[in-house]
């Protein structure tokens, strides 16, 4: 397989990311040393508020929120009327999930008659948030929308490939990857009901949708909706709280405004804290039934219905806890599809990882997320309608896909922001028809409420 220019960019991005991680680790070690030195000074000079504030910030940055709380409670001893110290304590307790303590601190700011108005307004907003979190009903919603440019909007290879059909026989087709723009809207609604027991058992449901409208290739206009529902049971462990959630899932999609597939299934997911990481083993089985669409050409001539079957996925996710100083999210999975036609069945290994980190710009947060992924797919049987460049028709398709990208999300306020993403995807295949490259650039607003 010839080297693609995009691969060099991908390798450079990986190298840069490794450098970033190395740099962050070195900075973390220096920060930890600095915090220890400040703590030693504090023991000798405990009334020094400058030291206490600096220690609180470093502790917060390192994820040691209890140490930050201890320092702030000391500052409050010296000035019990200081409203920002109370707000900060409330926020620290909120980050630990101790929302009743957070509410108490926010209320105390409002109860003091001399709290300045800007701080009072801040405390009112935080108190409202704390009361929301204390409610057994939790709703979280998001909308992401914008425009997306793709260098290969029709997902075609850059080169020749061979197809075979009974009427025309063996035909050489010239691939014509063509760019395209689309507008997209992605939505999510998450609901949970807390049963109020000590284990933290709760009912969880979600509805996610994804919709696109393309400027040029309206065959790829896509609408998808997915519903999940299940009960999460808490599992007390020595080092924290684990959980297990059995759930059911329903899904449906349109392609070019006609039914594409519908289906359903179920799964099981665990969340297990291991130090500062949450490990989430999961398994899921989803059946999908596809509908043919004579107006859409698929490479080769197979039909959508050939894909009918059950897709089974098993693997695990890894994620650092929400407020960890250095974060990553990763997913490793093994997937199989048992399709009506063997050449649409496959087994697949995939791995993806993200390294989100925050940059504070004049009080606003910019979230930067480098992301990497790889997916290897080995199909179960040759597709007789798609052949390799030598016209051999018994080659079983194997694809190796790499993905590298960078996302940036800027929070304008608590409920709105703007985001952009650059993504490069390259697929190497033993069949020319599936060797593709695609650059994707998207940007637009996002909302949370």
């Amino acid at each position: 397989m010839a080297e693609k220019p995009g691969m060099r960019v991908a390798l450079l991005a990986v190298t840069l990311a490794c450098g970033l991680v190395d740099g962050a680790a070195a900075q973390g070690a220096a920060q930890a040393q600095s915090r220890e030195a400040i703590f030693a000074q504090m023991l000798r000079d405990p009334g020094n508020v400058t030291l206490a504030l600096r220690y609180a910030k470093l502790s917060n940055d390192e994820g040691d929120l209890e140490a930050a709380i201890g320092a702030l409670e000391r500052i409050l001893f010296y000035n019990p009327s200081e409203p920002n110290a109370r707000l900060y304590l409330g926020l620290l307790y909120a980050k630990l999930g101790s929302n009743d303590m957070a509410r108490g601190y926010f209320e105390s700011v409002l109860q003091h008659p001399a709290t300045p108005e800007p701080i009072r307004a801040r405390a009112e907003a935080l108190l409202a948030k704390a009361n929301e979190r204390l409610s057994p009903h939790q709703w979280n919603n998001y909308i992401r929308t914008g425009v997306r440019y793709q260098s290969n909007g029709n997902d075609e290879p850059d080169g020749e490939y061979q197809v075979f059909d009974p009427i025309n026989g063996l035909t050489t087709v010239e691939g014509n990857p063509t760019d395209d723009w689309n507008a997209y809207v992605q939505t999510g609604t998450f609901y949970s009901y807390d049963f109020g027991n000590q284990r933290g058992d709760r009912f969880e449901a979600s509805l996610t949708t994804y919709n696109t409208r393309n400027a040029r290739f309206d065959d790829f206009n896509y609408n998808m909706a997915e519903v999940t529902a299940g009960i999460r049971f808490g599992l007390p462990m020595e080092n924290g709280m684990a959980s297990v959630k059995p759930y059911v899932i329903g899904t449906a999609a349109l392609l070019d405004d006609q039914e594409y597939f519908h289906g359903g299934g179920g799964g099981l997911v665990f969340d297990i804290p291991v130090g500062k990481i949450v490990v989430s083993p999961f398994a899921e089985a989803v059946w999908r039934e596809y509908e043919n669409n004579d107006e859409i050409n698929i490479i080769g001539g197979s039909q959508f219905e050939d894909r009918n079957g059950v897709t089974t996925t098993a693997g695990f996710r890894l994620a650092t806890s929400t407020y960890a100083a250095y974060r990553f999210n990763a997913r490793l999975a093994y997937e199989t599809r048992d399709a009506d036609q063997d050449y649409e069945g496959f087994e697949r290994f995939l791995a993806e990882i993200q390294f989100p980190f925050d940059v504070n710009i004049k009080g606003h947060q910019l979230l930067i997320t480098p992301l990497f992924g790889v997916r290897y797919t080995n199909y179960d049987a040759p597709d007789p309608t798609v052949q390799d460049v030598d016209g051999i028709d018994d080659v079983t398709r194997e694809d190796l896909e790499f993905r590298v990208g960078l996302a940036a999300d800027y929070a304008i306020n608590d409920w709105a922001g703007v985001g952009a993403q650059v993504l490069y995807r390259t697929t190497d295949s033993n069949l020319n028809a599936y060797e593709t490259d695609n650059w994707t650039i998207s940007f637009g607003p996002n909302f949370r409420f």
Partner: protein
Amino acid sequence: MPIFNSRTAARISALLAGTALFTLNVQAQSVGTAAAVNPTTEGVRPGQAIRVLRLGSDIISNERINTSPQGSTQILFVDKTTLNIGPGSSVVIDQYVFNPKTDTGQAAITLGKGIMRFVGGEISHSGGATLKTPVATVGIRGGMGTIEHTADGTIYLHHYGSATISNSCGSVTINRPGFSTSVGGPNQCPTDPEKSTKPAIDRALALLTSGPGQSGGGTFTGQGPQTIDTPTVDLPPDLQKDLDDLVREAQQDVVTGDQHYDDPPPSCTFSCTGN
């Protein structure tokens, strides 16, 4: 030659004196400092006279700390644990051992009466922290909790981490912030954990800090005692800005944290065409 002569006696005396000195040094080793003190707060060391604690006073193992009905204090331990002690309380540091090289150790603190909040440092992260009252024992792991003991028994409010509350009757474990248990007597079992009440939380917040007119021994306020009716005394401007920045960052962290919690699933990360 006698077995026990003057030279031998001198050697034995020196050995005994050295041992006594060594023991004294171990017992007198500081385990922390009084990082904030409102009068009257007193420390009582074994075999020694009562002393009034001030900001910066050393605290040693086996020391008893008593607060008057207006007194309160925060003890900052060498393993980064902080212990806020409220008014009318009596607390003993029964045991404190910490190895800074391994960040492990053991701490046992008894609350005879009153109220205190334990914010765990390295010792509690390794499961070595124990809080006791006359009717119950609380083992805390990596966490924070408030404990109050009165004539009606002990109440424990859990804020973070994991805590096991036990006595001769039975035990309960609390893993979830915002839950509490109470123990009426040494032979009464701890109650099943239930959500902490708002009055209990508000009471803990009010008692475990300075009261009106108090400043914990700190002097940066610079304008004399405060009362509930006096205007807020600002921090010096540079510290005010530092704290304001910290609040903004933390507020944004909480918003971003909510976003991380419900980040959309990686739908369409690899393909949106169902393949």
